[in-house]
Structures are given as structure tokens and as C-alpha cells.
């Protein structure tokens, strides 16, 4: 795998940007003029007044942190998975130890009730 093999990826990236850009500029060109009254954010007809960007429930932050931990562990499992058939029992033991740390972490956060949604 050489760096030049990523050229098609770049072209597809350009394609994706082109599609998005085309739609955006099309709506810029053709849309009717905007009117000021409609600029209020939608709140089911109630007049807005309270600040919009309020604080989130702590659960969202907890979920984000849990995700980072588990996703990184996931990224480490993929290389072991690719070579597992060549590594045989040794690979299996390594993988088992690694998965054990994940299960242990999951059990811990479960016990700490971090998975509950309050």
C-alpha cells in the first residue's frame, strides 16, 4: 500500500465536497429573498427568551468519555483480529487478556451506575 493508492480517496472526497457545494450554491442562487419576521427560532409558537445554549445533563459527558475509552480499545482489537489466524493460541491469549480489560472496565462503570440514564 503506497501513498498514491489514496489518490482515489482524494477524488471521492472532492466528489463529496462538490455535491455539497453544488446544492448549497444552488439554494443561494434560486431561493427567494428572506424576510425578517421568520428569523426567530422555532419554539412551538412560544416567544423565546431564555438562553438557548444551556447546560447539558452530565450523562452526555459520561457517555462521551466512555465512548473514547471503548473506541480506542476497539481500534487496538482490529490489528489482533487480522492476524489471529496466524498467531494461533498465543494470539488468542493476548486477545483474551485485552478483552478482559474491556469487560473489567465495563463491569466497573456498570457497577458505578455510569450507564444509568438519569
Amino acid at each position, binding site marked *: 500500500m503506497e501513498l*498514491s493508492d489514496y489518490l482515489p480517496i482524494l477524488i*471521492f*472526497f472532492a466528489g463529496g465536497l462538490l455535491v455539497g*457545494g453544488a446544492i448549497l450554491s444552488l439554494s443561494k442562487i434560486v*431561493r427567494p429573498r428572506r424576510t425578517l419576521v421568520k428569523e426567530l427560532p422555532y419554539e412551538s409558537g412560544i416567544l423565546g427568551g431564555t438562553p*438557548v445554549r444551556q447546560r447539558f445533563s452530565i450523562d452526555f459527558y459520561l457517555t462521551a468519555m466512555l465512548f473514547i475509552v471503548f473506541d480506542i480499545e476497539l481500534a487496538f482489537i*482490529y490489528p489482533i483480529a487480522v492476524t489471529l*489466524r496466524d498467531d494461533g493460541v498465543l494470539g488468542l491469549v493476548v486477545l483474551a487478556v485485552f478483552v478482559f480489560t474491556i469487560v473489567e472496565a465495563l463491569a466497573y462503570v456498570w457497577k458505578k451506575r455510569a450507564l444509568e440514564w438519569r
Partner: protein
Amino acid sequence: MTGDETFLVIVVKAVVVIFVLISAFAYTLLWERKLIGRFQARYGPNRTGLHGYMQPLADVVKLIFKEDFVPRGANRFLFHLAPMISVFAAVAAVAVIPFGTTLNAFGEEIPLVGADLNVGVLFLFALSGIGFYGLILGGWASGNKYSLLGSARTAAQLVSYEVAMGLSIVGVIMLAQSLSLVDIVNAQRDTVWYILFQPLGFLIFLVAAVAETNRAPFDLPEAESELVAGYHTEYGGLKFAMFFLAEYVNMIIISALGATLFLGGFAGPVLPGVVWLAIKIAVLLFLFIWLRATLPRLRYDQLMQFGWKVLLPLATLNLLITAVIIGVGFQN
């Protein structure tokens, strides 16, 4: 490998694939509306053109001429950037989906895949990660309480199910010994479809896929009845269409990924590979629509706990069982 392809060939391939993808989006949307109509004992759209098949065009024309405004208090730059990110991530993801072996044209063997990356699976996950930003920024930049709640929910839901989905396909990677989608399809052509070896993995993948694409019964980020469409409440006209496009293209991509990982991808007898892949994608898309027509929406705490307490342990179990069987029984 794609190293010796000419620049022109790649560009032509990209244009054709993206064009087909966008058309597939339009007709997936139409078929969904028709099918949902049938599920609810009505006809669905059938007036525009022959049997309603011009409906997508009519929708686009309508959306083009919609007033396109930015709400007061919105961050204008991010408000425009967000749908752009969503569309970009969704469309670019098609690059690594293989849709056939090779095509003999102009005296050259052209591999029918945008780019055969040796990290294809990771590439898809990375792009879906970028796609989240579109939804989150869109909700945040709108300056609307519903949108902000919608995008916070989206973020939490997507990351929760991303982990389960990532783990559910590790079994496939172990069997195929590769992260390249082309290799995974070829490995299935030599043996059988991996759904036979990985039934549990496929099931977890499907459930996570429904949640990843914000589809019913996991469509809480845009729950109409409580959040008024969630992150795209304030979006109208073509910018709304862009979020829609991204959502449906993501559905198609994730169906293609499921078909490639578990159902043999483009492999199949008699018919050409593209047709097989299209059939498998269509079956999975039908499943998505069927689920939407059948199941009621979950409650948010149920949704989060299901992801972490049911899917994640199940996926880990599936991973361990597969690892033991392969490590002991199927060594090279």
C-alpha cells in the same frame, strides 16, 4: 491495487458511482414512502409522473424554491457548514465499497471499487465519525433549544452504538484476516457468506446500523413528537434536503457495508456483481423500512441502556467465542 490506474479512469469511476448513489437516494426515498403507504393500507405518492416515479424530481424542485433563511442567534458559518459536512462524509464513504471484480474497458482491467484500501473498514468508521459533526454542529449552530437537545442526543446515541457496531464486525475481520472490503468479499467467495459463521454478529450489526442511521425505532434525535425534528428543526429548503440526502446515503452505505461484510457483497452466481450487490442492499433497505413501519419509538434512557448493557456485552461475547473457535480450530 489501484496504483497503476490513470487519473482519468478514477475520476470517471468517482463520477459514475456518486451519480448512481445520488439517484439511488432519490428512489430509496420514493420507495420508502410507497412502502410505508402500503404498510398503512394507503397508496403513497402515485400522482407525479407514471406511478409517482417523478416524485423525487418534484420534491427537489419544490425545495429549491423554498425560502432559505438563517434564524436569528444562529452561527451563520457553522449553520451553512454543518449540512455540507454531513453530505461530504456520506458521499465520500462510497469510495471503499466494492461493487464487482474487474471491468474490461478500453483494453484495460479496471477494478470495480473506488479505492481498495487495506484499512477500508476503519476508513468507513472514520467518515461516519466526521459525519456526526454535521449533525452536532447543525443543532448547535441553529440557536434553537429543540435542535440543541436533538444534537446532544444524536451525539450520545451515535457514539454508544458505534462501539457495539465496531465490536460486532471483529468476527468477520478474524475470518477474512483483512480490513480491506475487497479481501473480505473475496474470502467469502472462497468459503460461504459470513452470516452463517456470524449470525449473532450480523444481528448486532443490524441493530447498531439502525441506531447509527437514526432510523425508527431508534430515531430519537429527530423525534417529531418531542423535539420537532431535532437537529434540523431550523433548516429549510435545500439545506434541509442536504441533511435528508446524508441520512439516506448513510442508510445505503451501511446497507452496502452489511451486505459486503456478512452477505458476500458482490459475490453471487450468474448475474453480474453490481446486480447482486444492489439486490442485497435493497433487501437490507427494505428491512430498515419494515422496521420503521412496525416498531414504536424507544424511550431515550431505554435506548442508551440497551446499547451499553445489552449490545456491547453481546458483541464482546460474540468476539470471544469467535476468537476461541478460530484461535483453536481454524489456524493457518
